[in-house]
């Protein structure tokens, strides 16, 4: 499996990374080197093997439906790059 620089550009957009052409080239080389390293996994027949998402199996962890106080609007927006009247402010969304 080898990926092209064009495809790297697509992954970049999907990852919300504005990549320069130089970055795209470098990433294409690096990603292909890493993907080549992954090829060894194909040596293993895993058709009958279940996946492990968690190493320590657990199930049914829930919390009670009890409201708890959170942050004040001032605390919530304190680190916002831009805020106004307790709202987070960003560039205008044109879709919708």
């Amino acid at each position, binding site marked *: 499996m080898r990926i092209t620089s064009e495809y790297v550009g*697509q992954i970049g*957009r*999907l990852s*919300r990374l504005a990549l320069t052409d130089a970055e795209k080239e470098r990433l294409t080389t690096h990603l292909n080197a890493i993907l080549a390293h992954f090829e060894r996994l194909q040596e293993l027949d895993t058709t009958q093997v279940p996946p492990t*998402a*968690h190493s320590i199996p*657990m*199930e*049914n*962890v*829930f*919390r*009670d*439906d*009890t*409201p*708890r106080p*959170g*942050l*004040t*609007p001032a605390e*919530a*927006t304190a680190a916002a790059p831009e805020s*106004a*009247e*307790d*709202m*987070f*402010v*960003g*560039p*205008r*969304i*044109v*879709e*919708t």
Partner: protein
Amino acid sequence: MTEFEAVIGMEVHAELLTASKMFCGCPTTFGAAPNTQVCPVCLGLPGSLPVPNRRAVEFVARTALALHCEISPRSIFYRKNYYYPDLPKGYQVSQYGDDPIGRNGYIEIVVGGQTRRIGIRRCHLEEDTGKLFHVSPQTSEVDYNRSGVALMEIVSEPDLRSAEEAREYLVQLRAILTYLGVCDGKMEQGSLRCEPNISVRPKGSAAFGTKTELKNLNSFRAVSRGIEYEIERQVAVIRAGGQVTQETWRWDETRQVTAPMRSKEFEQEYRYFPDPDLVPMVFTPDWVQTQQESLPELPRQKQLRFQEQYGLPAYDAQILTETRALADYFEAAAARHADAKAVSNWVMGELLGRLNAASLDISESKVTPEGLAGLLDLVANGTISGKIAKDVFEEMFVSGKAPEAIVQEKGLTQISDEGALATTLDAIIAANPKEWEALKGGKEQLTKFFVGQVMRATKGRANPQLVNDLLKQRLAS
């Protein structure tokens, strides 16, 4: 010309009536001031972790059971990855694949006297996004109060064939949700949201046409009109030799048309994978049994019982059971007034009419079931006429006063004193000799004239039956 039929599937999102959010303890009060119901978890702050709300899981499982779904023995949360300013983590915790909490169920709907079974593909749990406000041409603002509110998604099979069926499906679904107490069903507040996907095909064809998705349907009316409009639009496109393209359309409430939404720059790729911060949910048969046993009487069962127990027509039973609150209201009134059909007529006619006109919910009605039953008692025992009853009802609706008190205060008691009515009638006959002669001569439509004159003279309080009787006596003599 080819006849077309519509193929409609419904995707419904219902905000769950939990006291706290899906994965954190923030409250869920609607309409709170911006960013007052947020914490590190629902703001997606670095380092924060989700812990699922047990009640939300129970709510979805109970809904799934009410929709005749099977419960997955093992169900997990996935991350749906996409970027949007209202999505604080850059992914939505949702469910995916073949292990949602519930799957393969159905809803029964009755349209045009026909009962149809609409398949339910899946019933799953996820979290809501924040809310965006577009306040200036340059900026958008975000309030994360809604972020992380427990949201249930119910997806139907494409079994619906008309806007009317789609609407009825939604009515029945909302009824089930409100009966279970898992969702308040308020479309205008966005706690119940519906996104139909619609295609058309030549009648009798088995293949599916290209479907479009319809958004921004904020009322039952919008659902009906939007779907009807979209069906007509698609048929017109095909008839004109064109092709329907797969895209999302938006219902424009003001212009009453559908309009295409700006298409996405590139195809969505959500990169679903199991959320490593959350562990699997395992539902044992015992647990499922407990949930099943906790289900209340559901709308369809209640409809059949209303027909049986109160002798109501199917139509009445269907309307009265649309919400649990309405059904409870009816039953409370019917328990106090023997004529259930009269109660049904008043609830469906006057009460719902006035509530709808005032955009009020049944829970906000100042006319209590006791009040309504009292009013009908007054009509039944002849204290007031049906016509006066409507005025009394209006007063009750506005002031919330008891009907007896209103009748008392305004002196609206029906006049059934034969002597007094005879005096009034005789005076009217004397004042209208030409009409009286004509009536005597066989012009029977003038009966109404004389009764009307008596009613006017008594400000509507005369017992109309008695006036009729007195008139007949005088004609016969």
